[in-house]
């Protein structure tokens, strides 16, 4: 289509850069600098959308982020499809494809429009009152139908190919909004040496100056003043200008979220660059110059294509060089519309003004237009509109002095501007938790008391005079930067002032008078809600859905509040506003997620022998952030076969495990032993240097929190291990007690998890494998018994050598500096080759320890398990008066009979490997609900015992050893024998081997 509605001259578009886009398959033309909305209008396309509920034809209604109607699926190629994209804020780019939404089969012919015919049935809240009969219909018929009708666009189905970035910034002054007030604020603040950021949501900075053809500032035209001002700001090194950047959220302590659109306006963006950037700015001071939104007038049929906000007519004409129509009617209750009329007249549009106010209340602005060929019908109301897919007339009538409606008159037109006054955009201010106050004269909620570090300037404060905006902006910017410098701007007068009208006067109410266009909420809906008892504004909003559409009610909020007040006969401030929540405009999920995707979603931690494991075909499991080798299957081996081979190797020769993920904490100081006594259940002060002990850590509630080996290296130095997942929280737990309960203790805690690689060598041949590599240390049991620690030298490396076992076999854990972990691993493999050394993974480790009845914290425990429940009461140091958690062990429920206790289970059929998590029953024939006697915590096939083994927590378990119980399985139940949890080597002789 051709740009039949493009003016011959004017606008800020680049006529040298033509572009072409597709709209519902038809080519439309435009210029660089257009938005999708201005391009559509330039091509004479006014009917662009169907409404949410009634599927009514809709056109572009505004020129900015308040747009309720013009939402499209924008296709940027590939999987880059964005539903619900606002035409008024999306820059036109060559090659874009736009599709209208929410209709079937097409925009022009939409079956859903039938709803409009029966719309009286679908008044506010209708769905709460119906769809209940018959009951089964809800799920089968009603709900699917409601859902299919709801929603707007279609969500993409393919993964988003674009990247998003996060940026964090600190500044002294953040100015939000680059209209006159914001520009003045940035100018003032940047005269200091403070860091200033100026952010504006539009492609071009300037705000209202971008469509102002008639004002003057200090003798300059608005455009030339803007050019000079932006040049000055650009030249200052302490200023960062962020156009296309919406400040969407104002959070605690001056932390603001800003969304910068980086590439959507580019035809060929750099493929590796981010599409959008989320800025998180911590600002010393914030100046909010967020402007105001125009209010529509509410009358039946105020939603036809061709009807838009009055100021938007001016924007499309002046800024984009688009002729909004040939014959315009401007319906208004305020003065600013007269400036719109003047500007439209200047580009050759025939204009009639219908002013709701009486003659004497609009005489000044009416006089200014006298002789311009513009009819001004003061004291008139609009009764309805005509036209199907585009407005073609307004039905108007005079409002007689006594109140009744006079003779009707049809005003032919092809576009209509509505101006019901202005609503300051206090969203961010309100999010900052500043207090709002209602100004009766301005009919607006305005910023009153700021929280610290914030000030507002310009239209957001209800100051609509250009000179006042500039002056306030300057003052706010200067104050934010700590300057007292004054500056006076001389600007021409702005037409301001309006009379709030909630609903245009009419003799009777017929047809839909829309308050919220996107959600199809009418004035009647608001009245109905109030009459049904929904008096709070939040109730009205939720019952009618007014203000809950994707525009978040930017054009409707004040009209809704006003209508509620009017219906209740209350004052507006008594109704109050709904809460302003972030975001100001919708924010892409991907931008909020930022780089936290894929591998960076959560960083992957790998132990030193990870690369070796990858090379040797290991399969891995996630343990917290760690990737641990689960098993090393050989060709044609499944997991079970590999685990069986690995377990058997450990039992018969030796296995090697990368245990570096274990948490390691060094506890040092004169009071280290005393401190550990207070933290652990065990009495660790009696531990001799060179010895280790398996120890339990409880939380103050008495439940097992972590376990590990505490090794005493010297009198005042301990090396403590924790579980893999517990490393960070155990250190935190210890630090908390040390610093906040016992600061008098001389103890230092240092995490050395990352500093040491830990390689475990376990099995009867472990000593033989180790011996050739260790210098000057007698590995014989008499010299270096089980549960001992030595500092030694291995392969020339200083090491901490532990003789410990989590397998029940003779075993060592060798700690060397992490960077040498792989080298040590290689040396051990080499040394053990002839002896059958076998790398084993976490699965074999689990089986080996379960055969021995050793617990794993987090598997046998779940935060409700006390030491005695595990049969580990022996780890409580006898006679200890106190340690963390001791007192809780004496609470009634912890000493009551019937607690679940750790036992072993053997399937009676000697075949079934139980499922971990299976429940234990005494009588499988009991009717539902059945009593659970406990659950299976660990379960494996045991290669050493040649049978399935399981550990379970069972009520009074230890006294039930020998009994027959049942465990649930996917197929039903299986009989199990309760037994001692130690399945292999019950005397524990092998560790001493």
């Amino acid at each position: 289509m051709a740009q039949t509605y493009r003016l011959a001259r004017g606008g800020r578009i680049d006529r040298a850069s033509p572009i072409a886009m597709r709209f519902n398959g038809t080519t439309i033309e435009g210029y660089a600098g257009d938005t999708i909305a201005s391009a559509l209008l330039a091509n004479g396309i006014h009917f662009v959308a169907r409404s949410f509920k009634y599927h009514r034809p809709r056109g572009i209604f505004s020129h900015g982020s308040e747009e309720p109607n013009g939402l499209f699926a924008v296709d940027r190629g590939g999987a880059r499809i964005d539903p619900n994209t606002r035409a008024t804020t999306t820059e036109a780019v060559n090659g874009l494809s736009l599709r209208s939404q929410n209709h079937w089969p097409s925009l022009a012919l939409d079956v859903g429009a039938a709803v409009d015919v029966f719309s009286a049935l679908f008044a506010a809240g209708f769905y709460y009152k119906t769809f209940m009969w018959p009951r089964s219909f809800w799920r089968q018929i009603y709900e699917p139908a409601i859902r299919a009708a709801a929603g707007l666009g279609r969500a993409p189905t393919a993964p988003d190919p674009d990247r998003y970035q996060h940026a964090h910034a600190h500044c002294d002054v953040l100015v939000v909004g680059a209209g006159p007030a914001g520009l003045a604020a940035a100018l003032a603040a940047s005269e200091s040496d403070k860091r200033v950021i100026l952010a504006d949501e539009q492609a071009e900075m300037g705000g209202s100056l971008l469509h102002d053809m008639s004002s003057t500032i200090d003798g300059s035209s608005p455009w030339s003043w803007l050019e000079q001002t932006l040049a000055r700001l650009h030249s200052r090194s302490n200023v960062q200008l962020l156009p296309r950047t919406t400040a969407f959220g104002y959070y605690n302590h001056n932390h603001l979220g800003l969304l910068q659109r980086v590439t959507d306006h580019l035809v060929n963006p750099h493929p590796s660059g981010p599409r959008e950037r989320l800025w998180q700015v911590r600002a010393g001071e914030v100046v909010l110059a967020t402007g105001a939104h125009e209010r529509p007038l509410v009358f039946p049929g105020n939603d036809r294509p061709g009807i838009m906000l009055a100021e938007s007519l001016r924007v499309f004409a002046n800024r984009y060089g688009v002729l909004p129509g040939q014959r315009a009617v401007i319906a208004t209750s305020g003065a600013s519309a007269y400036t719109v009329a003047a500007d439209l007249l200047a580009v050759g549009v025939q204009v009639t003004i219908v002013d709701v106010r009486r003659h004497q209340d609009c005489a000044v602005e009416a006089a200014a237009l006298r002789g311009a060929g513009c009819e001004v019908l003061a004291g008139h109301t609009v009764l309805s509109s005509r036209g199907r897919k585009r407005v073609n007339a307004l039905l108007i009538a005079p409002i007689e002095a006594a109140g009744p409606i006079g003779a009707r008159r049809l005003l032919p037109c092809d576009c209509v501007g509505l101006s019901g006054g202005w609503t300051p955009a206090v969203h961010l201010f309100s999010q900052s938790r500043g207090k709002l106050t209602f100004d009766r004269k301005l009919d607006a909620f305005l910023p009153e008391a700021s929280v610290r570090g914030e000030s507002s300037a310009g239209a957001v404060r209800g100051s609509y005079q250009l000179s006042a905006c500039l002056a306030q902006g300057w003052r706010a910017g200067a104050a934010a930067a700590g300057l007292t410098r004054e500056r006076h701007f001389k600007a021409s007068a702005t037409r301001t002032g309006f009379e709030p009208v909630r609903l245009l006067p009419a003799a009777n109410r017929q047809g839909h008078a829309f308050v919220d266009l996107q959600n199809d909420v009418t004035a009647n809906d608001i009245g109905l809600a109030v009459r049904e008892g929904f008096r709070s504004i939040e109730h009205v909003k939720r019952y009618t859905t007014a203000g809950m559409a994707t525009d978040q009610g930017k054009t409707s909020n004040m009209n809704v509040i006003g209508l509620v007040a009017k219906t209740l006969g209350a004052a507006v401030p008594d109704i109050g506003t709904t809460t302003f929540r972030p975001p100001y405009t919708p924010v892409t999920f991907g931008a909020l997620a930022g780089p936290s995707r894929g591998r960076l979603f959560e960083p992957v931690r790998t132990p030193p022998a990870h690369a070796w494991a990858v090379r040797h075909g290991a399969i891995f499991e996630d343990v917290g952030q760690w990737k641990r080798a689960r098993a090393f299957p050989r060709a044609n081996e499944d997991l079970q076969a590999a685990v069986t081979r690995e377990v058997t190797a450990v039992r018969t020769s030796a296995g090697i495990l990368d245990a570096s993920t274990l948490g390691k904490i060094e506890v040092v100081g004169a009071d280290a032993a005393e401190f550990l006594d207070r933290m652990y259940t065990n009495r660790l002060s009696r531990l001799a240097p060179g010895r280790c002990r398996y120890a339990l850590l409880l939380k103050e509630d008495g439940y097992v929190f972590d376990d590990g080996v505490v090794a005493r290296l010297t009198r005042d130095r301990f090396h403590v291990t924790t579980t893999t997942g517990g490393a960070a929280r155990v250190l935190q737990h210890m630090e908390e007690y040390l610093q906040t309960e016992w600061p008098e203790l001389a103890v230092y805690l240092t995490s050395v998890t990352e500093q040491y690689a830990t390689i475990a060598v376990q099995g009867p041949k472990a000593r033989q494998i180790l011996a050739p590599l260790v210098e000057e240390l007698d590995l014989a049991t008499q010299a270096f018994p089980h549960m001992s620690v030595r500092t030694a030298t291995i392969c020339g490396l200083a090491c901490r050598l532990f003789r410990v076992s989590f397998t029940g076999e003779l075993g060592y854990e060798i700690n060397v500096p992490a960077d040498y972990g792989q080298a040590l691993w290689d040396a051990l493999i080499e040394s053990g080759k002839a002896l059958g050394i076998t790398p084993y993974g976490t699965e074999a480790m689990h089986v080996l320890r379960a055969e021995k009845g050793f617990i794993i914290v987090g598997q046998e425990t779940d935060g409700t398990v006390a030491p005695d429940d595990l049969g580990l009461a022996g780890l409580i140091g006898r006679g200890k008066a106190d340690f963390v958690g001791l007192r809780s062990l004496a609470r009634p429920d912890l000493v009551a009979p019937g607690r679940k206790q750790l036992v072993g289970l053997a399937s009676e059929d000697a075949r079934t490997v139980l499922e971990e998590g299976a429940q234990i029953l005494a009588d499988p024939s009991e009717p539902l609900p059945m009593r659970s006697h406990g659950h299976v915590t660990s379960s494996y096939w045991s290669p050493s015992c040649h049978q399935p083994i399981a550990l379970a927590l069972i009520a009074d378990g230890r006294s039930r050893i020998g009994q027959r119980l049942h465990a649930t399985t996917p197929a039903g139940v299986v009989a199990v024998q309760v037994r001692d949890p130690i399945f292999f080597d019950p005397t524990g002789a092998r560790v001493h081997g």
Partner: protein
Amino acid sequence: MLLIPCPYCGPRPEIEFRCGGEAHIARPQDPAKVDDAAWGDYLFLRTNPKGVHAERWVHTHGCRRWFNALRDTLSDRILATHAVGERRPDPPR
């Protein structure tokens, strides 16, 4: 996200810290002498006020030191922070 003035490091973003809950809940000197109800109260009972709250924070990803803060739980404003053992300042008006 809060901006928390660590007494040792200065103002830092909240994600560097961990909140340790209500402050000044003293661990009984001799827990064995405390009855079940009192011990339960020590473990679990919290003031949870709407207004000024004395609470503990630890600068986990910084100096790793614990400290105390006074924060208004309605406005989330931090009124003061101080080192463990230092006298608790009066909340500024």
